[in-house]
């Protein structure tokens, strides 16, 4: 087991350990203990590099997962800290900032605020727009944002395109009179 994991489990009550391969582990830490755990990993266990912070939206489970990827260059080991936030319907989950540990964390936090709506109060410039400009819809990376629908409504693709499903089209051609006689819908109608 790679360095630091025992500590995480014992001191910070981490759970759901997945050892993906040698030198890469995923582990869940409670939201309240996450920053302490990360600080511990950085200061004591040598995980001195923050590879990235990102999120994954588990809308079905009502969870917003934050992933902190920490790298220990000396041991060639990586730990991903998962933090499961309660997902809110209209964005606005909140998490403590870690920009005091790594200066560039503020950019990821700014990005998460913009793209996922996860707030990091006290992170500098977290409310500034980072990638998007003049965005007035829900944070686009949230799972319930339908990018295709948005694109079709906003950017109106070139029209005049139709396509045919081979099975339907063939049935229409081979059985031109009543190609749909077998379909479920019609039979249900009859049944009712």
């Amino acid at each position, binding site marked *: 087991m790679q360095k630091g994991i025992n500590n995480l489990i014992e001191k910070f009550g981490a759970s759901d350990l997945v050892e993906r391969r040698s030198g890469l582990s995923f582990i869940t830490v409670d939201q309240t203990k996450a920053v302490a755990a990360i600080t511990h990993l950085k200061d004591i266990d040598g995980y001195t590099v923050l590879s990235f912070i990102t999120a994954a939206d*588990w809308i079905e489970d009502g969870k917003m997962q934050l*992933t902190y*990827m920490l790298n220990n260059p000396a041991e060639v080991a990586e730990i*991903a800290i998962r933090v499961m936030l309660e997902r809110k319907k209209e964005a606005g989950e909140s998490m403590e900032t870690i920009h005091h540990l790594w200066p560039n964390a503020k*950019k990821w936090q700014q990005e998460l605020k913009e793209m996922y709506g996860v707030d990091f109060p006290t992170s500098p410039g977290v409310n500034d727009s980072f*990638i998007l400009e003049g965005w007035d819809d829900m944070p686009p990376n949230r799972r319930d944002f339908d990018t295709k629908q948005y694109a079709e409504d906003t950017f109106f693709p070139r029209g005049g395109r139709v396509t045919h499903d081979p099975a339907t089209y063939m049935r229409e051609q081979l059985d031109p009179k009543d190609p749909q006689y077998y379909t479920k819908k019609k039979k249900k109608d009859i049944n009712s």
Partner: protein
Amino acid sequence: MNEDRSLYPEHDENGKPIIDLESHKFLKLWQGPQHPGITGNMSLELTVSGDEIVESKTHVGYLHRGFEKLLERRLFVQCMPTSIRLCVAEPDPNEYIVSTAVEELGGIEIPDNAKWLRMLSLEMARLQVLLRGVPGQAGTFALGLGYQWGNYLRDLILDSFEELTGGRVYHMYIIPGGVRGNLPEGFKGRMLEKLKLIDEFVVKIDKLIFQNVVFESRAKGLGHIPKEWVDKYGVYGPAARASGVMRDVRKTNPYLNYDQLDFEPHVTTEGDVYARSVVRYNDLQMTVDMIRQILDKMPDGGDIRAQTPNVLHWKIPKGETYVKCESSRGEYGMYFVTDGSDKPRRAHLKGPSYTHANALLDKLLINANIADTAAIMVSLATCPPEIER
């Protein structure tokens, strides 16, 4: 370099410069997005006093396409054409990390021949970037000659890519399960001929750039990254190696068959633009050597792809992984989450430019000359599409 610049502008107690634009002592200067001295479509909001930068802020998002969102609605194989466009200059690491993440979570073992071919395409991609990037560093100081020569050779490498993969810039060569073709007939011979030309080129740019007094005077001491910053700010690849920290995924976490190759990445301690270009220059030579080794060691033909399930409805069980490789700019990784469906739940690209171009660049540009911004950016090899994705 050594003058005392602390007097101007004054700083408040937090160490922030006090900038009053109304005083007319300062000027707001936008470098980009329409600007020849910027690495791609991004911009720097500079506050300058005379020729000196007192504050810098990186603005990105001009190339944002929402890749991570788009990948969430694509089948695993459909992720490939989309994700290779994450970084235009060097698309192959994108192909590699996405394919490998899919293979790892889907439990596919690729044939040995495909591993060698993947390495070949990754190293060729690195070579074509460095052929532009090494002389491009001098190009930012308006010495465009090496850049012109380098670009010609890059075109030759792109020709090889075209032969091997069928694409000039977007290769679509590495796909889940393996690669999309064996070496064409006579490829090795033609490649070795081109490498000979590159050997000549390496000597020529050494004379033109690294033996050049003006280049040396401008690049030395510029954009200095101390060793402590490497971890703190997240510096990767050649930039970290120029500051005396060994960072090369090929060496530290060998993937594919890199452990069978004989190579030693160059490490130096100066940490300035000159050191970074020297490290890149050595990388260029090393890459040429590695391609020779790969061509020498790789088997003559064989299986190119392991059989995957039907790609049209390939479902991968729930899991997450982080796959990384060494791009010409440094560690290039993909955080990939699957949820048991036929599409990824989350794909997050981690490119070195993200850290290089944001906090680090803002820091490095303070007190630099306007004329040096391009040089510092190029030396960090910032690539905007991988910042905003």
